């Protein structure tokens, strides 16, 4: 494994990290152990080393490099579990069957846990034992964060977002951006209403790069007459704590959204076209808070599909252009929102050409899990994306849709690199452009 990758990581708070190597490893293992329950231990114990998970991973498929075998990415933590806390830990320790994990080991594993995994969960579907490999990676990231070995790009954003609610240095507050988007696109943006039934969030990527998608969501909500508001204190729902592997920061970031929703008495938090925002808020926020949330969490495509099914949202039919749809992993495979985008596309009369790997089996965009934010991952990301772009082309599609802004960023970058003849479009924008008056 290259040392260049190791040097590229500054680590979370590494500059102030006065701990010894031993203490940092202990920190990692402590965080790892705290995430343990019977189901995770089952995952640790059950692996039969069949290597099949490699055949689900786009990074292995694209490169043929065995180090990208998903379960190998969790190897250090599997080893530590068997040696330190498994049922026969003393046996493995005394006989030296499992070597002690060192800081150097963890440093070598940074690349595998952060630079070559989107936590997309495809490997969990191929495992003949039924192991949740992606969960092991996620827990491994938590350990790495506690050892001060999370990538600086993610750790810094997570810290900033936990502190300010905004995961980047901005010239203008997001609330200002929202107002400008409203003015530019001629839609009324409801901001900071004291009480509302729906609290809406926006994706950071779309605020900056695809403002028309934000405007589209607002347009549909206005058309539906929804009682909604954005909240200045929690405009984005994405969670860099999830990417970086910090349980503490993830909880703090999620709490900001949860508190705002509670404050305005919302019965629904509407997550925009952002995969990780959806997964972290829909399936992890309540677990982190240790309480049932007093509101529902829905992805915008789910909400719109419900409106279509209730007859409240009627759409015009679009052209018959052959269209492929990318199922974002965090929303579809891991999040369970499989039917909603197809309900919308059906209502729109989209001539859908499914890829061979679609719905829960879709290949990831390769930008998720924070990889879009780590520049040095780009060469590997592009290799995996090439596989996906070919799969889209194989459908004969002329239009390419998705429902995640992070995926769009990844595909836009890959499209530019490969001179791809398609642009990745937002499903919600297509809906907004075709509302039946």
């Amino acid at each position, binding site marked *: 494994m290259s040392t260049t990758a190791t040097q590229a990581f500054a680590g979370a708070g590494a500059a102030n990290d006065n701990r010894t190597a031993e203490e940092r490893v202990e920190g990692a293992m402590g965080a790892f152990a705290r995430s343990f329950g019977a189901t995770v231990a089952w995952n640790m114990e059950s*692996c039969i*080393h069949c290597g099949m998970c490699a055949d689900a991973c786009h990074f292995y498929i694209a490169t043929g490099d065995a180090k990208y075998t998903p379960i190998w990415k969790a190897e250090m933590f599997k080893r530590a579990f068997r040696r330190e806390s498994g049922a026969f830990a003393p*046996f493995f320790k005394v006989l030296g069957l499992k070597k002690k994990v060192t800081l150097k080991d963890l440093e070598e594993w940074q690349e595998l846990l952060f630079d070559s995994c989107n936590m997309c969960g495809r490997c969990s579907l191929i495992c003949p034992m039924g192991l949740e490999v992606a969960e092991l990676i996620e827990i491994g990231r938590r350990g790495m964060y506690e050892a001060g070995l999370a990538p600086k790009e993610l750790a810094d954003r997570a810290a900033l977002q936990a502190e300010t609610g905004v995961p980047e240095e901005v010239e203008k507050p997001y609330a200002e951006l929202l107002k400008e988007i409203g003015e530019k696109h001629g839609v009324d943006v409801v901001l900071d209403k004291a009480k509302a039934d729906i609290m809406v969030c926006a994706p950071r990527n779309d605020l900056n790069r695809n403002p028309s998608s934000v405007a589209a969501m607002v347009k549909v909500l206005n058309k539906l007459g929804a009682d909604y508001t954005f909240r200045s204190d929690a405009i984005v729902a994405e969670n860099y704590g999830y990417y970086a592997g910090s349980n503490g920061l993830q909880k703090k970031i999620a709490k900001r959204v949860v508190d705002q929703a509670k404050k305005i008495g919302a019965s629904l938090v509407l997550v925009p076209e952002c995969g990780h925002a959806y997964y972290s808020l829909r399936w992890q926020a*309540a677990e982190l808070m240790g309480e049932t949330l007093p509101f529902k969490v829905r992805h915008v495509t789910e909400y719109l599909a419900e409106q279509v099914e209730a007859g409240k949202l009627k759409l015009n039919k679009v052209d018959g252009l052959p269209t492929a749809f990318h199922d974002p992993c965090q929303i579809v495979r891991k999040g369970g929102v499989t039917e909603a985008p197809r309900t919308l596309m059906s209502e729109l009369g989209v001539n859908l050409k499914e890829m061979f790997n679609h719905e829960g089996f879709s290949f990831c965009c390769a930008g998720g899990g924070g990889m879009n934010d780590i520049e040095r991952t780009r060469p590997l990301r592009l290799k995996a994306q090439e596989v996906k772009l070919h799969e889209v082309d194989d459908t004969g599609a002329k239009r390419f849709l998705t429902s995640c802004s992070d995926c769009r960023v990844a595909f836009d970058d890959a499209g530019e690199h490969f001179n791809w003849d398609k642009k990745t479009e937002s499903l919600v924008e297509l809906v907004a452009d075709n509302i039946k008056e």
Partner: protein
Amino acid sequence: MSILEFSRGPMLHFALLVFVFGVLWRLVAVLMLGFRKRYSEERNSNDKALMVGGATCGLRSWPHKEFIGRTAFGEAVGYGYHIGLFTIVLLGGPHVIFWQNLFGFSAPWWPTLPGGLITVVSVLTVILMLIATIRRYMHRPLRQISNFDDYFTLAILYAIMISGLWAVLGGPGRYEYILAAHIISFNLLLIWFPFGKLMHAFYIFPARFVNGYLHAKKGAAT
């Protein structure tokens, strides 16, 4: 006490003790970690999740069509030698007698296959095991993730299979010693069982069930 008497007497009893208590401890040690209470609003009911979990126990044996092109060979070899081993252990005449003696019951209804057929199955099983071993070394991800557990487990299985075939086919050496070698290797398997990957025999269905159950609660793919 002859080596044969030792292998099927005290050593077998010791091996069985290690096996039973080792397996129980390894299962209990996992269960003692407890199941976390979940707070997220579920997409599907508990009943549906239980059904999906149950179905996943069986369905995961057959690869999804999206993966079969890449995994068919490995799965065929893997399941192939497992089926062979089960056939030999559960339907081979001497083994059926061994189980009945060990557990102290008579089961005239227990079917057995002709010895010749069991020998053919045994040879095929060893061939499949050889392919699996070569593949473990040649297939890059497999080689990367393989460790002592994988090779030691395979070594014990080879010892059992080869000594068994040797005894049946009348290879050189005293039958008593060959049979003792066969039983000693089986005892080693029992002793190693709780410590290594052989535990997957007990983990496979709970692990599949939990995966299917938790995914179904989210409405996620299984």
